[in-house]
């Protein structure tokens, strides 16, 4: 990839951001105990970190846009699966 040498400094920036976000993640449950905001923040942080790995380390950002469709498809299908399972799990909250 021709652009790689241009991203040289980027790798360490991404690394530091990932390390800092991991530290923040570890700290979140100690500060926020209410489950809904805690889960929301942790999941958001995890998705940001995963996105950074895919975009910069896996170079997805510098690939053709259509390759992104292959990458994003499993997320859509799995979210769909999760929402299909949820009504079943939520029986305990009703009965």
């Amino acid at each position: 990839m021709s652009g790689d040498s241009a991203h040289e400094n980027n790798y360490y920036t991404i690394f530091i951001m990932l390390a800092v976000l991991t530290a923040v993640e570890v700290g979140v449950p100690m500060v926020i105990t209410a489950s809904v905001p805690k889960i929301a923040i942790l999941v958001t942080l995890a998705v940001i970190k995963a996105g950074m790995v895919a975009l910069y380390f896996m170079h997805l950002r510098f690939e053709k846009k259509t390759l992104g469709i292959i990458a994003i498809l499993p997320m859509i299908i799995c979210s769909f699966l999760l929402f299909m399972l949820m009504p079943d799990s939520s029986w305990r909250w009703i009965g």
Partner: protein
Amino acid sequence: MSQSATAGHVVENYETPLTPESWGKLGMWIFLAGDAMSFGALLATYGALRFGAVNWPIPVEALGGVGLSAFMTFLLICSSVSMVKSLEAMQNDDRLGCIRWLGLTVLGGVAFLGMQAYEYTHLIHEGMVLAENPFIIDSTGSVVGHWHEGMELAAGQMRASSLFSTTFYMTTGFHGMHVFSGVVYLSIVLIRVIRGNFSADDTNVIEIAGLYWHFVDLVWILVFTFVYLV
């Protein structure tokens, strides 16, 4: 992109419209998409089972803190960086640098597996196995003690769901298997680099191996959050 594309023309007759450098790269992406669905199924099942359970222990308390798993996360992030540096070194025609960084990446993977083995051993000794666990929890999910045969539970206490340990071992075990495969995969690539394969114009194999390794890192970031932290 242009320099690798030129190299691709030498060995391949038709180029893929998605990844002009090589078909192998597209193949790896499609494999990873399928693999992501396996992990997605495990995590979605975990979410649904946990959401539906009344006796789910708080993971941090049951698993003895997040120190080790947080360090394992950090280790995989480091090994992802050494992987990109290894590819970059080869692209700059620095074979020794490539070997050094790739060797570090493999070491990171081995260290991760060692820590996971340590963690599993520790948990199994505590009585947490695939189909059952010893944790006694109160109504908030806080772990208040360990169960042993013939024990009487105090009011408001209950035994933790056995699904807690099942989902934990299935998800982290499936990921650990991927790390193991990655260590084998990267070791083979490392041997080929040492033998003098690849050059600045021919780095596809290293890049494709890197895609797999970064994916394993990416999945662990999600597993760490869902299984250990939430």
